[in-house]
C-alpha cells in the first residue's frame, strides 16, 4: 500500500510540518516523518502553505438515493463530498422508500461502501414513512450493519410532543440521538420564505422565526425531562441561538448545527424570485446571520452541517411557489466557513476542525473504533485528512461542481479557501483539487 508524505502542511494552521500517512493511519509527524523508513518509498505531496484538517464530517446530507437518482446518487454525492474535503457524511432518511427500516439503511450504507469516496452513515427515520405518528424500528436500524445512531425525520418536524418524547427516550438504549427539524407545521402551512419585511413586500407566504424557536424550546425541555441527547438541525434564527445558549447553561444535553447558507445569505435574495434561494428553513435576516455567526464562534452552536439538498433542474426552473426547497452545499461548505469565520478572524483552524469534524463525529458516535472519524491529527490515528489552501480565491461555477444537481446559490460568488486534497484512511480521494480513484474497499482496514 502506498504511503504519502505530506510536506510542510500546517496542522490546524500551526507551523509547517511533515506528515507520513500509510497503512490507513498517521504513521509519523514532524521531523521524524521524513526520516521514517517507510517515507523512502512514499509519494510526496507538496503541502507548503496548506492547512491540514481532520477529514470533514457532515451530519446532514441528502444523497437522494434510493428514489431520486435523477437529482443525486450516493456515488455522485459522495464524490462531491470528497471534493469538499469530507471523509464522512450522514445521509438523511427522506429517500423513497424512506430509510425507516434496517433494509433501507443497510442499502444506503452498502452503496456508500461501494462508491468508496467517503464513509456513508445513514440516518434513520424517527417515524414510519416520516409520517410523524408511529416510531420506526429504531432498534433494528441501530443494530443493523449500518449501526445507525442518528435519527431524524428531517424535512418534517416531529411535531407530536408525545412521539418526540418517546423517540428521545427510546434511543438512549443504543446511545442514539434525535436530530430535530424544528418547524411547527401549523405556523408554517404553505410557507415560502422568512416572514418579515421582505415577505410582506414580495407577497410570499411567511415562515415565522417563532415556528422554529417554539419547537426548539419545547424539545430542550423534553430532553431535560427525560435526560436524553437532542440535536437541533439547521438552526436559523437569533432566537434559536438564545434558546440553545439558555439550555446549555442549564446543562441540557443539546447540540445544534447551522448551515453554511444561514451563515452567509439573507432573505433579501428572495426579491429575485429565483428559487435557487428557496430553502427550508428559509434564509433569514442580517440580524439572524450575525447571531448564528456569533453562536458558532462562542460554541453555542456546535457544528456546521451542509444540508446539501440537490434538486433537478426542473424543480428549480419555475416559479418560486412551485419550486423545491433546498440548495447544494458539500463543495462550498468549507470555503464559506473560511470566508465568513476564519478570514474574518472569528474562528481559527482548530475551531474549524471542531465544528466540521470532531464535534459532528462525536454527535453521530462515529468517533470510535476502526473507522473512527473526527479524530485528532496524531500518530496512530486514522489517516482521514483534508488539505486546504486557506488563501485561495475561487469563483463558484455551478457547472464545474461535481454534484449531479446544479442548484447552488453561490454561482458567480467569490469564496476564500479551497480543498486541495482529501485522504480517507490513508488513500487520496482528492489530489491537486481533483477527484482520484475511489477507495474500493472496503471491509477490512488495510
Amino acid at each position, binding site marked *: 500500500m502506498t504511503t504519502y508524505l505530506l510536506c510542510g502542511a500546517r496542522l490546524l494552521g500551526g507551523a509547517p510540518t511533515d506528515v507520513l500517512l500509510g497503512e490507513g493511519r498517521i504513521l509519523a509527524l514532524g521531523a521524524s516523518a521524513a526520516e521514517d523508513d517507510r517515507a523512502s518509498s512514499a509519494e510526496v505531496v507538496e503541502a507548503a502553505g496548506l492547512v491540514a484538517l481532520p477529514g470533514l464530517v457532515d451530519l446532514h446530507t441528502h444523497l437522494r438515493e434510493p428514489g431520486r437518482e435523477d437529482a443525486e446518487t450516493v456515488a455522485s454525492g459522495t464524490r462531491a463530498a470528497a471534493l469538499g474535503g469530507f471523509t464522512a457524511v450522514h445521509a438523511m432518511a427522506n429517500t423513497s422508500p424512506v430509510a425507516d427500516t434496517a433494509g433501507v439503511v443497510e442499502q444506503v450504507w452498502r452503496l456508500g461502501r461501494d462508491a468508496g469516496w467517503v464513509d456513508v452513515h445513514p440516518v434513520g427515520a424517527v417515524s414510519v414513512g416520516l409520517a410523524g405518528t408511529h416510531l420506526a424500528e429504531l432498534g433494528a436500524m441501530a443494530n443493523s450493519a449500518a449501526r445507525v445512531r442518528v435519527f431524524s425525520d428531517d424535512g418534517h418536524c416531529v411535531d407530536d410532543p408525545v412521539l418526540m418524547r418517546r423517540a428521545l427516550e427510546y434511543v438512549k438504549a443504543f446511545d442514539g440521538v434525535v436530530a430535530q427539524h424544528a418547524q411547527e407545521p401549523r405556523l408554517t402551512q404553505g410557507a415560502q420564505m422568512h416572514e418579515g419585511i421582505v415577505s*410582506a*413586500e414580495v407577497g410570499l407566504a411567511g415562515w415565522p422565526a417563532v415556528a422554529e424557536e417554539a419547537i426548539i424550546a419545547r424539545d430542550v425541555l423534553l430532553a431535560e425531562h427525560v435526560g436524553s441527547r437532542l440535536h437541533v438541525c439547521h438552526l436559523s434564527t437569533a432566537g434559536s441561538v438564545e434558546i440553545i445558549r439558555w439550555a446549555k447553561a442549564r446543562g441540557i444535553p443539546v447540540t445544534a448545527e447551522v448551515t453554511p447558507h444561514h451563515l452567509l445569505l439573507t432573505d433579501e435574495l428572495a426579491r429575485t424570485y429565483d428559487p435557487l434561494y428557496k430553502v427550508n428553513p428559509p434564509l433569514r435576516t442580517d440580524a439572524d446571520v450575525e447571531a448564528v455567526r456569533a453562536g458558532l464562534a462562542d460554541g453555542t452552536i456546535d457544528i456546521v452541517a451542509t444540508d446539501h439538498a440537490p434538486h433537478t433542474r426542473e424543480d428549480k426552473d419555475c*416559479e418560486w411557489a412551485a419550486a423545491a426547497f433546498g440548495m447544494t452545499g458539500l463543495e462550498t461548505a468549507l470555503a464559506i466557513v473560511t470566508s465568513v469565520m476564519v478570514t474574518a478572524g472569528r474562528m481559527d483552524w482548530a475551531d474549524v476542525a471542531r465544528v466540521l469534524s470532531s464535534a459532528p463525529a462525536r454527535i453521530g458516535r462515529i468517533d470510535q473504533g476502526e473507522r473512527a472519524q473526527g479524530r485528532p491529527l496524531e500518530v496512530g490515528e486514522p489517516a482521514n485528512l483534508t488539505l486546504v489552501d486557506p488563501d485561495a480565491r475561487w469563483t463558484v461555477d455551478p457547472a464545474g461542481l461535481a454534484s449531479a444537481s446544479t442548484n447552488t446559490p453561490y454561482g458567480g460568488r467569490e469564496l476564500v479557501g479551497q480543498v486541495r486534497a482529501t485522504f480517507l484512511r490513508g488513500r487520496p480521494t482528492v489530489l491537486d483539487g481533483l477527484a482520484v480513484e475511489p477507495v474500493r474497499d472496503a471491509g477490512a482496514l488495510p
Partner: protein
Amino acid sequence: MRHLLSAADLDRATAIEVLDAAAQMAATQAREIKKLPTLRGRTVVNLFFEDSTRTRISFETAAKRLSADVINFAAKGSSVSKGESLKDTAQTLQAMGADAVVIRHPASGAPHRLAHSGWVGTSVVNAGDGTHQHPTQALLDAYTIRRHLTGTTGNPDGVGNDLTGLRVAIVGDVLHSRVARSNVQLLHTLGAEVTLVSPPTLVPVGAEAWPCSISYHLDAVLADQQPDAIMMLRVQRERMGGDRTGATGFFPSPLEYTRSFGLDARRLRMLPDHAIVLHPGPMNRGLEISAEAADSPRAVILEQVANGVAVRMAVLYLLLAQERETLA
C-alpha cells in the same frame, strides 16, 4: 419601459406619463370609432392561470382597441398542480409570435420569473400575481382618484398632476391583497398619504416598513383623517371564521367584520362631501360594502372599470409602440 411587473417599477415621472397617456386614450374612447391603428400587426397574449374574467376582458378590450391581435390562453392550473410548466407555456406562446404577454398567476413573482429568467424575450405585463402586485389596478385607481380629485374645468382629467396631499384609506384584507400592495407603492410615489385599515390578523408582518400608516379602527380613520378617497378591498369568504378543513379563520365571523370594517350608510356620511368610494371588484355587497355605499353617487366603481381599459391601453402602447419607435 420594457415590462410592467410592479408598481414599484414606476417612478413619479413615469407614473404620471402613464396616467397622462391613459387620459389621451380615454379621450379616444369617447369617439364613435374607438379603434386606433397603433398596434396593428402586434400580438398580445393574455396568459391567465387564474380565473379573472374582468381583468382578462379589460386587457383584451384594450389590446383590440389598439388594433393588436389578441390570443387568450386560459391555463387551468399551473406547474404548481403539475401541469405544463410556466416556462414551456410561455415559450410556446412566444414561438407563436407573441410581442407581449399579459400574465395573471397565483404564484407571487411568476411575472418576474417570466421577465427575468431568460425563458422568453417578450414584454411582460403583470395582471396580478399571487399576493404580490397588480400594477394596472393601482394605475387605474390612481387615474380615477386623480381625475376626480385634481381635475378642473380646464383640465378635467388632471393631466400632469400627481396626488400630493390627498388622503386615501384602503380598507380590508391587506394580507392577501396585491391591490393593496400596488396601491400603497404607487399612491405614495404620487404623493398621496395612504392609511391601511384592517383587522390585525389581515396585516402582514413586515408591513410596518411600508410607506403608509396602519390603523385597526375604521371609524377613527374616517373621523380623524377625513380621507379624500376610500378604497374597499374584497374580503374572500374562505378567509372568514375557519372552514371544514380545519383552517383557522382570520376573524370570528362575517358579521363582526362588517360591524368593524364594512362601509355602511353611517360611515359613508362620515366622509367629507368630495370624497369618493373605490372598489376593485367584484364586490361582496353586505360584507365589506353596503348597497347604500356601492350605489351612492360617491361610488366610482363602474368608472374604475372604464378607466381600466384606458390605463391598459396606455400601458400596452408605452411598452409596445414606444419600443418600436425607439428602435426605429
